């Protein structure tokens, strides 16, 4: 079954604070431990995209507004 939603993260503006990861109810986000962005932060990415429920918690918590949330049209 395709995911209910997905998020797009602006990799080079993400500061890797991890608030989106900590507040994701389905743990579909993670910090990229083996890569960094131009500023040297471990940026956030969708590690398990099929779990996303488009609840927007990650985007609401993101202090740098790097997350855009998309929801499947019903």
């Amino acid at each position, binding site marked *: 079954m395709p995911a209910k*939603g*997905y998020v797009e993260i602006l990799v080079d*503006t993400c*500061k*890797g*604070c*991890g*608030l989106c990861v*900590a*507040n994701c109810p389905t743990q579909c986000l993670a910090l990229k431990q083996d890569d960094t962005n131009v500023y040297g*932060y471990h940026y956030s990415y969708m590690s398990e995209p099929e779990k996303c429920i*488009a609840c*927007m*918690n990650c*985007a*609401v*918590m*993101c*202090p*740098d*507004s*790097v*997350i*855009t*949330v*998309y*929801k*499947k*049209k019903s």
Partner: protein
Amino acid sequence: MREGYEVIYQKPKTLTDNKMHYCPGCIHGTMHKIFMELIEEMDLQEKTVGVCPVGCSVFAYDYMDVDMQEAAHGRAAAVATAIKRMLPDRIVFSYQGDGDLAAIGTAETLHACNRGENFLFIFINNGIYGMTGGQMAPTTLEGQKTTTSPFGRDKKNSGSPLKMTEMVTPLDGVAFTARVSGNTPANVRKAKRVFKKALEIQQQNIGTQFVEVVSNCPSGWKCTPVESMEWIVEKAIPYYPLGIFKEPGK
């Protein structure tokens, strides 16, 4: 965008594309975002004037795409008073930290509230001087370690942490006071509703609006952003209770 999906949340257009200079996980960014979302939703971008403080949020005018004015340290309330009196049809807010509003600017703040100046105070209270390297602020909690209180804040030496919202609530000129936080998604959404209420009260012209935000400082508190959010729940919120303290008609 993928086929069959629609955007349900994105960065508000009232925030500029500049990269914020705040430390990772700082609630300043979250508050900028929700306040600017509100300005966008209420269609107030052309009517809003903000006043920046001195402190971490000194460059807030680089991020908020509304008219902004920088004030001398602590004097944002005085500048906002002038702007609102000269341009009474504008929405005016001052965005201040605890070093600015509760330390050097206490007099301006209290007297602006006492006069009932019709603008919104956004008071970001993280209990520490973030920009200068984590010194003790008037709002530092008892026992909290900072670079100028390495054994923890001592009540005998430094007194108790200042509760600004409780201080201004009894003043006649104040129409609306509330304390919110940005530590969980639910609290961020609540904060946005409180800001909305405050702006509606400003449009009715019945008195000062004062909203305190219990914020964090991962760099100054020497912890990760996620730990700082837990610290807010464990230590800060018990001392700085959240809620609406005063609103018209209640």
